[in-house]
């Protein structure tokens, strides 16, 4: 052990902070909320609840949108069937009119 070592140990000797340091730290700590594992779980639970709520909203919204699309598709199909029926009825009427005209011309 050299004199320089001794001098350095003396120079860097531990010192106590002010007399009210402990009280100040304990007061400040009492005002601060400790980070507990329970809080972490609580935060995680809240996140899960928010995720579940979001999933419900998406599910209900998706279901409404699906039903609307189904109804639209059924309406379109009904429209096409109506057009086809009118088309068939029109061609039948044309055919009947042609027959009537042929009969009149024979007279």
């Amino acid at each position: 052990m050299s004199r320089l070592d001794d001098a350095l140990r003396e120079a860097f000797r531990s010192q106590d902070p002010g007399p009210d340091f402990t009280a100040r730290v304990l007061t400040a700590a009492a005002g601060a909320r400790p980070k507990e594992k329970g809080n972490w779980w609580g935060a995680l639970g809240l996140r899960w609840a928010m995720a579940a709520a979001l999933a419900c909203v998406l599910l209900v919204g998706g279901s409404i949108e699906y039903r609307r699309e189904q109804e639209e598709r059924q309406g379109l199909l009904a429209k096409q069937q109506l057009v086809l029926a009118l088309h068939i009825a029109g061609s039948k009427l044309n055919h009947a009119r042609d027959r009537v005209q042929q009969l009149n011309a024979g007279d």
Partner: protein
Amino acid sequence: MAMGPEPLPDFASLVRAHQAMVFSIALHYVRDRSSAEELAQDVFLQLHQSMADMQSAEHAARWLRKVAVHRSIDHARRSRYRPQVGLEDAPEPVTPAAPGDPMLSERLRRLVASLPEKPRAVMVLRYQDDLDPEEIAATLGMPVRTVKSHLQRSLAMLREKAGRAFLPAAGRQNLSREMGEVE
């Protein structure tokens, strides 16, 4: 019989047991009492937030030392601390100095404060807490050989600057020989 780790004391007991160590690390690093008290208080508040993660008294002590050093380094970086009086401007004592001499201590602290951040932290941990290079390396997260190298270079600088300034002419040669044995 092998003894297990000491159980974790409560927060107040940890503050009382380690406040001198935490405060002194900050004080020796930033060289300002009020900043050091503020830093030490922040370190203990951080401990209070992390009490659930502490496993034993030794773990808490190591944790406090590490956080105190790193917070002191961060503080010094932010405040760009430089010695208020240049080393060359510091008054030279006219009487021989010995360990325990407040002027010698102050000069040594100034010289250590002039070191770059990592060597300075190494010197504070070595001479304040009497840690060996392995413990310093673990605290600062650096290789042991780097710690030894910092110690050697810092002591060489101190031998050169403080050794000559604080010894009477007759004793300088003897002390220089003694200081050569430090490494």
